């Protein structure tokens, strides 16, 4: 069964047709050309496919494409403002908070959600908030530092 879906992705109206059992991750990557979200595990453990749906952080591998009818989807492609990088993106580069980069879009989306809810998190809160994102290059310390620096900049401190 094919499903016709009208939704909003990063503020743009988008229509697509997908299979009923197709995940939002596969729709984003294979039908909409938004390849920022990555498939790591495909079972909600690694967070590489993190996106927001109606402002909630989710793993897009655990959402069906058909479910986002009328919803607002936010992906990594919507994070920078044109050529102007988001403070989190800038700080990830400055702090070298990435090696292979596969986990990075998911970390950025999850960190963005964390800072939206808690603009001044402690290190423990950052580590807990990002526990659903796995980095196999083991760059966690640099990621935490980058999030702390971005949080500071975003608070205008």
């Amino acid at each position, binding site marked *: *069964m094919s*499903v016709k879906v009208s939704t909003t992705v990063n503020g743009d109206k988008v229509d697509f047709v997908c*299979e*009923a*059992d197709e*995940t939002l991750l596969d729709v984003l990557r294979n039908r909409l050309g938004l390849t920022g979200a990555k498939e790591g595990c*495909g*079972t*909600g*453990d690694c*967070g590489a496919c*993190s996106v927001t*749906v109606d402002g*909630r*952080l*989710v*793993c897009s*591998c*655990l*959402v*069906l494409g*058909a*479910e986002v*009818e009328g919803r607002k989807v936010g992906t990594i492609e919507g994070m920078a403002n044109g050529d102007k990088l988001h403070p989190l993106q800038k700080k990830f580069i400055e702090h070298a908070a990435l090696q292979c980069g596969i986990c990075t879009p998911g970390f950025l989306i*999850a960190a963005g*959600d*964390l800072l939206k809810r808690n603009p001044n998190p402690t290190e423990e809160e950052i580590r*807990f*908030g*990002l*526990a*659903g*994102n796995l980095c196999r290059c083991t760059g966690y310390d640099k990621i935490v530092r980058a999030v702390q620096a971005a949080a500071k900049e975003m608070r205008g401190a």
Partner: protein
Amino acid sequence: MQYEAPDTTKAAVALLAKAKGSAYVLAGGSDLLVRMKGGFVEPDLVIDIKRIKALRDVKKTASGWSIGATAPCAELGENKALVKDWPGLVEAANLIGSKQVQGRCTIVGNLCNASPAADSVPALVAAAAKAVVAGPKGKRTIAVEQVTTGPGRTSLKKGEIIEAIQLPKRPPRSGDAYLRFIPRTEMDIAVVSAGVNLVLDASGTVKDARVALGAVAPTVVLVPDAAKALIGTKLDAAALNKLGAACSAACRPIDDKRGTIEFRTKVAAVLAKRAAKIAYTRAGGK
């Protein structure tokens, strides 16, 4: 696979009732989609119930609280009034998975997935929560502990869905707590768990108690003897030891890679004692 997203419970029940092949209800999907991905289930029909507005609500009612079947667990943690009334239950619900999973997972899904290690279920059983079941023959309300019958199995009949969880009204001087043992700090499945819910009288003596254990039997178990050990006491050492002994006696666990029978039986008592102390303090006991 066919995907349907009805906007009333009645329509969802009708779709489920007349389904020919395998039909599954989709709320948060954090169990169902994983099982689909792994090839453990191949649904002919998936019924997404998130378009049913009435099932979204988390609200205070005349008789306590009602938590709709599609309210994500993250929302429970953000509801200050609910956290105040049922801190233990919310803690348990918020232990399920990561922030990403919290944005999707639901307590009704946690219950219906019927894992003996489900985190929110011992807290729900300790809370004396009820499940509102809608089916082809109308609605019925059953105790939460009557929903699961074994690992992955429930007492729900064809065409039935759980619409909401009802929590009783909180009397003064009441408190609950949930603790689980996992070998790491987060993102894991309970090896053993315990939920305790207490009501105290004006002098701080336990007037009413419910104790439930997870991951020590085919289903979450309510332990009446453990509750009896606490009632009429101020949680002195003797009462806590009796509580622990009753909990260990109620365990019928399995040996597996996450824990042995011996370990689970011992730790059930430890966790129940610690959870009882937390619940007692939350109820205002000193």
